[in-house]
């Protein structure tokens, strides 16, 4: 920030005496000056323009077009409907129990995944921040789940959580829970399905968040910890009183990221269904998320207008939740922003 703001200043200062010094070279110098000024003043904008052009084409336009579609009747199997629907799609949304069910599921899975995920990531990061043997090996190790293709890992988890031959039930059986006689049907009720899906999400993202935290932690000066240790603060207290407040911007960043990711959850619930094509998220929508419902309404019921309205509702919900999370996390971690 500070460098870009400071950069143009010397150019104008240097340009002024130059012009005064040699009057004969005025035209050439002015031309060069202009070039120079263009370089300093506008080139940064030109260089970041490609992103914004891409964003306008692939981000903003679809977003606005989606808003238009959400106000229309857009049924693929019935083109005879009147063009405009007004707010009909949105008012239908309010009374649609499928939508509220999906919203409920999405938040349930989001809570079961985000909270443990970020807490565990903190713990993992603070462990990795110590002096360890084969440090790089450990650090790369926690990132491996993130590298695994999400479809592949979900397929494996889907078998892991199967009722009859699943490893999850076998492991629980070792502790005397469930077991082969009374196996847990992971797809039969909300809580079990949510836990199964949240496990997949956590597995994938803990290492990724841990590395973000680790990077931030490394910028904390050692002597703060030393002083705390002399004052008698144990590792747990150090984590909560020193580490977390000092890496607070990164914590906020991960909270926002996992909010967005969690509310858009699609692949895991989709592939958790034995019949993935159905997109119903279980026989009674036990784990149908909003993203999944949007897919179903758009591409299976062929009602694109209604699906667009749902997408916009989801967009607004994410904005609100991310905002609330930002404020809450900021308070909790003692921020002053």
């Amino acid at each position, binding site marked *: 920030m500070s460098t870009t703001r400071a950069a143009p200043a010397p150019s104008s200062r240097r340009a002024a005496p130059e012009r005064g010094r040699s009057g004969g070279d005025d035209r050439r110098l002015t031309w*060069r000056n202009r*070039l*120079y000024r263009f*370089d300093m003043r506008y*080139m940064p904008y*030109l*260089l970041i*323009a*490609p992103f914004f*052009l*891409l964003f306008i*084409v692939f981000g903003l336009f679809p977003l606005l077009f989606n808003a238009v579609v959400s106000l229309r009747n857009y049924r*693929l*199997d019935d*083109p005879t409907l009147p063009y405009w629907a007004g707010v009909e799609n949105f008012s239908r949304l309010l009374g649609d129990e499928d939508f509220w069910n999906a919203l409920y599921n999405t938040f349930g899975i989001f809570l079961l995944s985000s909270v443990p995920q970020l807490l565990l990531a903190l713990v993992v990061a603070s462990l990795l921040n110590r002096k360890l043997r084969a440090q790089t090996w450990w650090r790369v190790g926690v990132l491996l789940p993130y590298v695994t293709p999400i479809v592949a890992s979900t397929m494996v988890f889907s*078998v892991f959580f*199967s*009722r*009859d*031959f699943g490893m999850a039930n076998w492991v629980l059986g070792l502790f005397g829970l469930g077991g082969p006689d009374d196996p847990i*049907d992971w*797809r*039969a*009720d909300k809580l079990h399905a949510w836990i199964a899906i949240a496990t997949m999400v956590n597995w994938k993202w803990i290492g990724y968040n841990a590395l973000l935290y680790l990077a931030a932690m490394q910028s904390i000066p050692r002597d703060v910890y030393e002083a705390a240790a002399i004052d008698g603060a144990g590792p747990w207290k150090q984590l909560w009183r020193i580490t977390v407040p000092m890496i607070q911007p990164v914590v906020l960043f991960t909270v926002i990221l996992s909010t967005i990711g969690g509310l858009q959850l699609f692949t895991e619930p989709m592939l958790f269904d*034995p*019949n993935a*094509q*159905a997109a*119903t998220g279980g*026989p*009674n929508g*036990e784990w149908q998320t909003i993203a999944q419902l949007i897919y179903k*309404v758009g*591409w*299976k*019921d*062929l*009602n694109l207008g209604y699906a667009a309205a749902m997408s916009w509702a989801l967009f607004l919900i994410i904005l609100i939740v991310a905002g609330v999370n930002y404020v809450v996390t900021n308070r909790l971690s003692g921020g002053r922003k």
Partner: protein
Amino acid sequence: MKRSWTHWARAATVGAVSLVMVAACSGKSTTGGSDAADGQVTLKINFWGDFGLQDLKAKYEADHPNVKIQLNSGEYNAQHEDLQKKLVAGNGAPDIAAIDEGFMVQFRSQSDKFVNLLDKGAGSYESKYLPWKWKQSLSADGKTQIGLGTDVGGLAMCYRTDLFKAAGLPTERDQVSALWPDWDKFIEVGQQYTAKTHKKFIDAGTNLFNPILGQQQVGFYSDQEQLQMDGGPKVAFDYTVKAVQAGLSANLVSFQADWDKGFTSGAFAVLACPAWMLGHIKDTAPGTQGKWDIAAVPGGGGNWGGSFLTIPKQGKHVDEAYKLLEWLVAPEQQIEIFKKVGNLPSQPALYADPAIADFKNPFFNNAPVGQIFPKMAQGLTPQYLGRKNGPTRVAVENVIRRVENKSLKPDAAWAEAVKEADKAAKS
């Protein structure tokens, strides 16, 4: 001075390259093959499961060196939904698209998007087809025929002789048929089986519901497109819930991994068998050869499934596609498919052909499939399947699954099924 020049030039290059990349990304990719240039034609056929086309493809390509056939097998629902999307988009549909009877009404109401096969001279086929089969793909005004039938479902019961023997039940197919003249008796036999072996009798409640529904006079919809759950669906639903409550169902989901595993592990002993199911069993559990046999279905005739081949109008090689379509429904090929995967042709004249009439399926303990299925198909009065038949069936199947996994009480199930079906009808 020189330094600032190179600096500027470098920056400009970066900017320009980025802009070019943006332009390239938003540009239209070129489409279309080199088909026409050398007279080569590629015909794409979309279907699901096993239509028995693998060997026929090689044969046709050998006879027609300028034609390449591309077989594209997908998931049942996905293929139909995909076709619907492509029809609306006006681009991307295959040259030949298979459509199941469950989705036929939906597509024949868009007959303007398909090639009218009557224009191609398909009218001569009318007399060769089972009359109801011919009518199923005919548009409401009778002027447009969008497809030619391939197979019809028919119904029978496949059962495992080895498991029946272990449970002390008869294994000979006539004796087995005599065990269950109706569905009540069928459930009783199932209870005997589970009591004796402590194993499940049927694979899934949904695979009891569908065949029973197929036997009823009316299905989910009247021919006025009104949802009517109190007729056929109620009968089928009640038997299904009764069987589930009696603990007969292995609670598997059709066409999924655990279901396929069930065929090999003996997770269930009987399975409702339309003709097309034979191919699936053979493909999934080749190790169970000779352990299966086929008996009559309780409650008499009925139909479950059966497909048509259609030609979407947007294809580039409509004439070649029609030539291939005619070839595929010709008697020789239909008999070949019947022998290979069990799909029963929809042209009754073929039933008298010794190649079918005398055919015994070695995989199913030499059951006379050439006698069992044609008899069923000829005695049929099929139901009308509404436009929303597909989604409605999925909705009711989901309610049955909830009864099976005990998240829904059997007493409350019917009201729930009506509610869900209603929702699907309006979706």
